[in-house]
């Protein structure tokens, strides 16, 4: 019934060649344009890579939706945090005057910043939605300094690919690519709804990246590292959540 004709043979040979070349070219382009996420390995790697690549094509410069002040949630839900450590309690007792954010890695001038220093930088505000991967969400107003401002202050190198951020909570860290790190809505945020950022919401300092889900918005930020490779960090998957099977890119 299905006789192999010369025409069919030629067509399938061409299709196979085109397909293989296409895949090779796609892999090259993906690497060149940085469409491959750090957690591209494993059985779910293809899906993660597809999602990240398409999101970077479509959403590199788009702005997270902003809402009117009337849309701010009356009762923003603070998700579970670990019991504060003795160090944290001591810093809290001192009104976080001794809180420091250290910035290092691929930067010209590694430095550490007090909260007052961060507050002295141009302050920006956003009224955006925080959405948890579980499904719930709330809208709040956040004030803070743009991460890009801090990165410019320390002189991040052009070959930088990721900003890794660490929490005071043990073993809590995440990373974002430069598209999100330099995005104008990515804040180191110290105020929420025109008040100091509450401890339950990550005060005194939380990374706010509104185009990604809640778990990328790490609380109690004390340390940033600029890097060109995630290989040296943990299992190389770009964060602690990816090590538990969660996507590194959480824009979905």
């Amino acid at each position, binding site marked *: 019934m299905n006789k192999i004709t010369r025409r069919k043979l030629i067509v399938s040979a061409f299709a196979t060649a085109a397909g293989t070349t296409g895949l090779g070219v796609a892999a090259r382009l993906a690497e060149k344009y940085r469409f491959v996420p750090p957690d591209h390995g494993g059985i779910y790697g293809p899906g993660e890579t597809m999602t990240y690549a398409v999101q970077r094509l479509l*959403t590199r410069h788009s702005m*997270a*939706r902003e809402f009117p002040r009337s849309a701010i949630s009356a009762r923003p839900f603070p998700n*579970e945090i670990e019991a504060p450590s003795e160090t944290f309690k001591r810093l809290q007792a001192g009104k976080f005057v001794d809180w420091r954010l250290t910035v290092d890695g691929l930067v010209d001038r590694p430095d550490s910043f007090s909260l007052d220093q961060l507050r002295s930088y141009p302050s920006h505000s956003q009224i955006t*939605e925080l959405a948890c*991967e*579980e*499904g*719930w969400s709330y809208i709040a107003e956040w004030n803070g300094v743009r991460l890009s401002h801090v990165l410019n202050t320390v002189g991040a190198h052009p070959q930088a690919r990721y900003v890794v951020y660490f929490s005071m909570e043990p073993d809590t860290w995440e990373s974002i690519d430069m598209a999100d790190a330099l995005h104008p809505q990515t804040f180191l945020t110290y105020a929420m709804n025109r008040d100091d950022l509450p401890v339950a919401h990550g005060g005194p300092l939380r990374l706010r990246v509104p185009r990604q889900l809640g778990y990328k918005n790490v609380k109690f930020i004390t340390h940033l590292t600029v890097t060109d490779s995630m290989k040296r960090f943990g299992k190389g998957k770009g964060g602690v959540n990816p090590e538990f099977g969660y996507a590194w890119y959480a824009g979905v």
Partner: protein
Amino acid sequence: MATLGSAGVPLQSSVAPPASASLSAMRTPRHSLLVRVTHWIITLCFFALLITGSEIVISHPRFYWGETGNDLTPTLFRIPIPASRRLVPTGYGYTLPDQNGWSRALHFQAAWVAVLTGLLYGIYGLFSGHFRKNLLPRKPDFSWRGISADIGRHLRFARPTDADARSYNLLQRFTYLFVTFVLFPLVIWTGLAMSPAFTSAFPATVTWLGGRQSARTLHFFVSVALMLFVVVHVVMIFVVGFGRRMRAMITGRVSTPREDV
């Protein structure tokens, strides 16, 4: 796509094929190779999406309408099950194990495969005439009499006719059109409307639905509708003959009901 089944007396209006046509129809496959392959890929994806989707819902079995909603706000409704997260007020004194990591990964990977397969099927259906020939209702059947007669045959669980072995009946056509062109696009849309990054580039996709939580609730209901379709679909396969319909969807080979009796 196997049949929803129907049968009984052929409609006056439908054209009875001559015997020779019936023989040649037996040799031509009921389902083309592409329809068969895409059918089974989508089937696999559907079950992956259903299992992982249910798992994700368990982490927060509460639903809301509008833009926002969380443990501190009133719900539209909630599913009375325990949750996989400690802080969700479910009324149960325990939490289920958290499986969201791999569930989300598999959910999106299966969604990618389903969407790409669906696109392939859509392009094929458009250009091969599959939609026109097999899914659009045939003119002679497309009347109130035709529709009510077909509903009647379904309600009586009448045996399939020879014509049913060769192509889809009217209710099947409506159902498949609805699933392919309404439910499938809706479930993709409502899913994308939950992505904070996607909606940053295309805000209308979520504002038109009434907000993020509305999108999530609609995603749930469309998924339930798809699940109901699959249940009816499988029940109908058993009603008209499991072996025959499975054979048709795997090998493409058609046997008329008469052969099997």
